[in-house]
């Protein structure tokens, strides 16, 4: 099978181009280094199947970051039939050297000048014919966002792949010694084929930045924006969520219960109270999670995150990190795993470790589910948003405090030099693809982790079968009796404690396991919890859920990204210690104040 590799700098729309070529949904982000794993896809070009590989965005072959090493290693160790170089047409003056470097590797290359729409608006004109002659490669103007030029791209690729190739894998050493030659050719090619305006016209980006990066308003505006987005998700998502919950309950009472009524009670209990309640209670939160990811995509792809890095760098520098660490914290709000992998753009190992130590405190979407459920059960509709917002603030506080405590151990002097891309409005297609990607991811987790977790909880709470479910004589009861001395000082009872144990695997299981433990779902479960718990206990439970180990996937990612089991264990132990101490202080303090 023939193989095509995509290569280009960050912020050139490389992932968008990959998505358009393959129809798959890689994450696209307007932030240097979003594509950290190698995404591949197989497509049909002409009459043959071709594999397309999306390499991480790099600035040059000489670079020292993890991503640049990944690209070098990939090209040295894998055969590539055709290389596609993506260049942001608006920045052709500084991106052309990378194209020249790649062409000198000896692999047949096609150069795509992406974002032709933006280049046209800025008054940049490029003579592709002349440039192609000088580069000895096909040069195509295109827009990955709107699809312009894609016919030409596929036609060119088909024609090129049909030619017999003679080269072998790339030899990178040769490129390193040719810097001066590359500089000279860049200048002559730009001279011959590109016309640029002397001064950039004052665009929308400049005007927006005057507000978003305002010396006094910038930060308050950021927090206001976050709060509004969060309100938006909550107000729009709640009715949809209620609808789904109602639908699931109807299916149970109208369909499943009559249908299974003459089955053995244990099997019926297992299927309905175990699997259906558990998975169903979790599924009710899918709409809010989808909305959450759609909004996160919009923020990520807009280019605003780089502005946030600018605004927060002064504070983060005092905590031993930089603006990018804060952006990773924000990304962690979606899911901690890609945020941890995003730290690969940092070169200094200490800085990476410190950032990876704080990212797991980000209130991810899985934890959000737990909090939405508990706040809906125990707080009024008026206080619920404030309670949730307080948890977001505490999530930041735990992260910042951890950084402050550990910054002495992880000292770095990594330069902070990043590109500030223009604001871009992602198309509906981009956002929808990403939303679909997240739903698929969630459903995959649902079928594996959540179902398995919920089944395990049901067994623990229903065996041995001759005692009342979830009572002290069941397996779960024995586990809880063992943990009672640790959990009762922080106000967490047996049932909640069991849910926390399963939360180690994934936070998505917590709500589902509560449903399995109590054998109830939806409104009935919320009603029972409101009876059994007061708000202090509930808040303490949420605090613990917020701070302790996010999930097994995060722990595994910490291990693989830091390449150190010791570091992984340290983060696990530290988060448990911090969670317990914070809950202890909160619970005992609240009780002492007689709440």
């Amino acid at each position, binding site marked *: 099978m023939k193989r095509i590799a995509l290569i280009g700098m960050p912020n050139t729309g490389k992932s968008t181009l990959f998505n358009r070529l393959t129809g798959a949904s890689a994450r696209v982000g307007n932030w240097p280094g979003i594509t950290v794993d190698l995404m591949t896809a197989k497509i049909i070009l002409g009459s043959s199947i071709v594999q397309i590989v999306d390499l991480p965005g790099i600035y040059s072959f000489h670079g020292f970051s993890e991503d640049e090493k990944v690209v070098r290693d990939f090209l040295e160790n894998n055969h590539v039939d055709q290389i596609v170089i993506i260049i942001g047409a608006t920045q052709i003056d500084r991106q052309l*050297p990378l194209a020249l470097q790649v062409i000198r590797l000896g692999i047949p290359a096609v150069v795509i000048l992406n974002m032709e729409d933006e280049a046209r608006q800025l008054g940049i004109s490029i003579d592709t014919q002349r440039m192609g002659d000088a580069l000895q490669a096909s040069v195509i103007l295109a827009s990955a966002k709107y699809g312009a030029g894609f016919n030409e791209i596929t036609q060119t690729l088909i024609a090129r792949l049909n030619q017999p190739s003679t080269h072998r894998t790339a030899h990178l050493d040769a490129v390193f010694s040719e810097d001066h030659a590359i500089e000279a050719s860049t200048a002559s090619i730009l001279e011959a084929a590109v016309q640029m305006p002397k001064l950039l016209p004052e665009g929308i980006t400049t005007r927006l930045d005057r507000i978003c990066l305002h010396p006094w308003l910038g930060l308050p505006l950021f927090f206001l924006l976050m709060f509004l987005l969060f309100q938006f998700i909550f107000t729009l998502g709640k009715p949809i969520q209620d609808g789904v919950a109602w639908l699931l309950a109807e299916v149970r009472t109208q369909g499943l219960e009559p249908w299974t009524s003459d089955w053995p009670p244990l099997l019926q209990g297992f299927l309905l109270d175990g699997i259906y309640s558990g998975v169903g209670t979790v599924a009710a939160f899918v709409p809010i999670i989808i909305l959450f990811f759609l909004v996160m995509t919009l923020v990520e792809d807009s280019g605003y995150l780089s502005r946030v890095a600018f605004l927060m760098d002064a504070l983060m520098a005092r905590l031993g990190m930089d603006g990018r660490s804060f952006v990773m914290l924000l990304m962690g709000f979606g899911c901690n795993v890609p945020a941890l992998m995003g730290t690969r753009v940092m070169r200094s190992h200490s800085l990476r470790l410190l950032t990876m130590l704080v990212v797991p405190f980000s209130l991810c979407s899985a934890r959000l589910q737990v909090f939405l459920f508990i706040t809906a059960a125990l707080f009024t509709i008026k206080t619920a948003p404030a309670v949730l917002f307080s948890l977001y603030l505490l999530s930041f506080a735990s992260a910042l405090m951890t950084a402050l405590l550990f910054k002495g151990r992880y000292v770095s002097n990594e330069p902070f030099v990043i590109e500030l891309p223009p604001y871009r409005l992602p198309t509906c297609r981009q956002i929808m693809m990403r939303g679909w990607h997240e739903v698929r991811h969630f459903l995959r987790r649902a079928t594996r982790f959540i179902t398995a977790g919920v089944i395990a909880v049901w067994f623990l709470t229903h065996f041995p079968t001759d005692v009342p479910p979830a009572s002290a004589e069941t397996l779960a009861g024995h586990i809880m009796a063992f943990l009672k001395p640790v959990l009762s000082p922080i106000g967490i009872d047996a049932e909640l404690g069991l849910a926390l144990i399963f939360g180690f695997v994934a936070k998505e299981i917590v709500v589902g396991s509560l449903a399995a433990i109590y054998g109830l779902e939806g409104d009935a479960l919320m009603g029972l919890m409101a009876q059994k718990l007061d708000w202090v206990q509930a808040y303490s439970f949420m605090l613990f859920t917020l701070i302790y180990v996010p999930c097994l996937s995060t722990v595994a990612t910490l291990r693989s990204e830091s390449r150190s089991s010791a570091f992984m264990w340290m983060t696990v132990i530290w988060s448990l210690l911090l969670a317990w101490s914070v809950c202890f202080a909160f619970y005992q303090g609240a009780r002492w104040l007689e709440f």
Partner: protein
Amino acid sequence: MLKKISTLKPVWYYQESLSLIVVIVKLNLSAIQVGETAIIQALHGDPALHCRLEALGFSTGKSVMVIRRGRFGGPMQVRVGMTDVILRLSDAARIDIQQKPAPAAP
């Protein structure tokens, strides 16, 4: 009114035959005010920083315009060619520059 130029490091030379002390102050990017333009004279710093700066379009002879400076000693935003870059003052101090006179008002 005085401008703060504490980021500049003077280098002292002593010319023995003439008994002359010469102080050379090299201007670096971190001292440039908002709206001013400068021409890059040299890039210092470790190879990694050097390489990243070059990839972003910084090279000897190019002009850099300072767009804004962050508060509380935060980073500065500069424009090189068609690219906007944010960088910390400590990294900007690694870029030697020559100040360009402001263009006359039309």
